[in-house]
């Protein structure tokens, strides 16, 4: 595949459009889902079932004044929301939706996604620190320690999958899982490999992606009852909007990665009609679970969150890595 300038532009435009549409309508889905869980209708007024709510919200955010409070570090304050959004868009470039639908496949696709994924923690740090607000400051400190703590088990779990697939290429990782749900990485009974810890790994990865995207019950960064609004307390207008969209785009990335690494990507559970629709169904099922969890559980505290990662998730994922490596060597 030759990488021409037009190809790149088209890929980026499609990625931006996909991310923006997803982020906007995930907000709508979140509000509808919350309404469903809380016995109320949710957005209702704009369009049928409130479907025009996201564009209206967007217009509202864009027409508001972008206020830069006195005393903030202006350059970093302005860059931070862009930095929250930008890496997620780039990450989409390499995510394969099906065998044919991928903007630009790379043999180190997985590595690239993690590199850009870790940049969003930096955006939170920059946004919170430059805001010159004590709540934002505490929040960004929390966000960074949370990101560090949860990236480790996430990466270890990913290495386990990479060992099984033998590649960092996302296409290949999915390719190894084709042919029905019993071939997916989430199941322990893989041909010649009886790793019973794989479902645990899947859970660890899922929990980590909840924590990485700052979602409840791990939304310590923007714990609204403690830290007002966390790192985006001082942001108004689209500055806030970008942080918000970045969060939802991160959710989509997290769901995509979980699907690719553990749920067989575009593979059909019964080996029939593989294609992009399965991928879409899987990621939205995961996103619905994200929403469901958010509206059911109360928030944890930062220390129990870090304890969970350092004392439970990291040892288990390390043990799983060891076990998988051993099994791969033996069989």
């Amino acid at each position, binding site marked *: 595949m030759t990488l021409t300038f037009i190809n790149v532009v088209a890929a980026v435009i499609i990625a931006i459009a996909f991310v923006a549409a997803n982020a906007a309508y995930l907000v709508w889905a979140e509000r509808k889902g919350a309404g469903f869980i809380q*016995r109320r209708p949710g957005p209702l007024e704009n369009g049928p079932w409130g479907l025009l709510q996201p564009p209206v919200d967007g217009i509202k955010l864009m027409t508001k004044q972008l206020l830069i409070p006195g005393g903030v570090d202006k350059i970093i304050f302005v860059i931070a929301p862009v930095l929250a959004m930008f890496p997620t868009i780039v990450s989409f470039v390499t995510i394969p939706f099906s065998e044919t639908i991928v903007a630009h496949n790379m043999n180190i696709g997985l590595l690239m996604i993690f590199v850009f994924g870790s940049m969003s923690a930096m955006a939170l740090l920059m946004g919170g620190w430059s805001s010159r607000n004590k709540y934002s*400051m505490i929040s960004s400190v929390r966000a960074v320690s949370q990101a560090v703590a949860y990236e480790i088990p996430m990466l270890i779990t990913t290495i386990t999958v990479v060992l099984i697939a033998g590649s960092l290429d996302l296409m290949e990782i999915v390719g190894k899982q084709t042919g029905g749900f019993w071939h997916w990485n989430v199941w322990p009974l893989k041909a010649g490999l009886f790793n019973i810890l794989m479902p645990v790994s899947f859970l660890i990865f899922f929990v980590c992606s909840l924590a990485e995207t700052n979602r*409840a*019950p791990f939304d310590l960064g923007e714990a609204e*009852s*403690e830290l007002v609004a966390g790192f985006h307390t001082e942001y108004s207008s689209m500055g806030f909007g970008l942080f918000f969209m970045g969060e939802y785009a991160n959710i989509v990335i997290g769901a995509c990665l979980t699907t690719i690494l553990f749920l067989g990507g575009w593979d059909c559970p019964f080996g029939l009609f593989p294609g992009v629709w399965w991928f879409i169904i899987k990621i939205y099922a995961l996103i619905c679970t994200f929403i469901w969890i958010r509206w059911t*559980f*109360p928030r*944890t*505290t930062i220390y129990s969150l870090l304890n969970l990662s350092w004392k439970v998730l990291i040892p288990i994922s390390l043990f799983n890595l060891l076990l998988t490596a051993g099994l791969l060597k033996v069989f």
Partner: protein
Amino acid sequence: MNEPIVLQPDETFVLNVGPQHPATHGVLRVKMTMDGEYIYDAETVIGYIHRMHEKMAENRPYTQYLPNLSRLDYLSAMAYCHGYVLAVEKAAGIEVPERAEYIRAITVEMNRISSHLVWFGAFVLDLGGFSPLMYAFDDREQILDLLEAVTGSRLTYCYFRFGGVYNDIDDDFIEGTRRFIKRMREALKMYRKLVTTNVILMKRLQGIGPISVDMCQRYGATGPVARGSGINYDVRRNEPYSVYPEFNFDIPVYSECDSYARYNVRMEEMEQSLRIIEQGLDKLPGGPVNPEKKPKTIKLPPGDYYSAVEAGRGSFGIRIVSDGDKSPYRLKLRSPTFSNMHLFDEACRGMLIADALAFMGSLDLVIPEMDR
């Protein structure tokens, strides 16, 4: 504005929580001296919505002061009106028909449930769980509808009169209340499954915010805060008033002294209130709801009078000093939250900010009542 955030020599910094903060449920300010995320010292600043209700009482006849009482604790307004009418009736020697007392007890207990429901929702919201709030408000709506039909208002009730109540209850109310009791019992079961036994919630509340018995005594904590510390103190039982001796109900007491104990006390109190309402409806006598003869202008004989009732948040006391005039010489409102909140400063030292705010929620604050 442009100098950097100043750290004290001992590396603490001051975090100003409030007056506008999501966790303070009103206009309350706590100056916290923080060491990282740990609270080193805290000073609560109140008085942002002080309205000088006590001065207002000196300027108007006893009857005209009735509406003020429901503006103190807007969530359990009935109990405050009850305390006031009981104090004046006792001093002025006004007889109250039995039916009126039963109606008062029923409505006060319904109001107590609605108050605890708001607390329940807001408290779990403090912990980051949003959905229970909506469920609680849904149930509370039923109470408000029932009370609105009888009292004419939904929040700031002015239902009680000296010697009786403003309006008799009808069959619709009785039937609706019985339906509500049934519904509420189901809802409480659901809350227990959904919220009370939730692992995250239990981890966040158990062992957090200990209040010892000694601290309760030094600060004069009452209500669920004292009962969560193993003190079996409820004005309804310790100092029976109105028709409460007629009812068979328990006072839930937990001796764990933590936020979870206070949470459980309130959840069980709702069940006990349902029992009281049920018995009240069963035993409801006939007859008038207002005395046949009642003095036109109420004048209290000179002297001072103290009267206490159990409001949603603790012991609400009212001290009236009378010089024989038609308005009080001095009227003091003893608000339970005032004493309960005061111990926050001492108790929150060394806590994480997240725990401290959960602890603050477990005290069940209503700021207008504290500021009066």
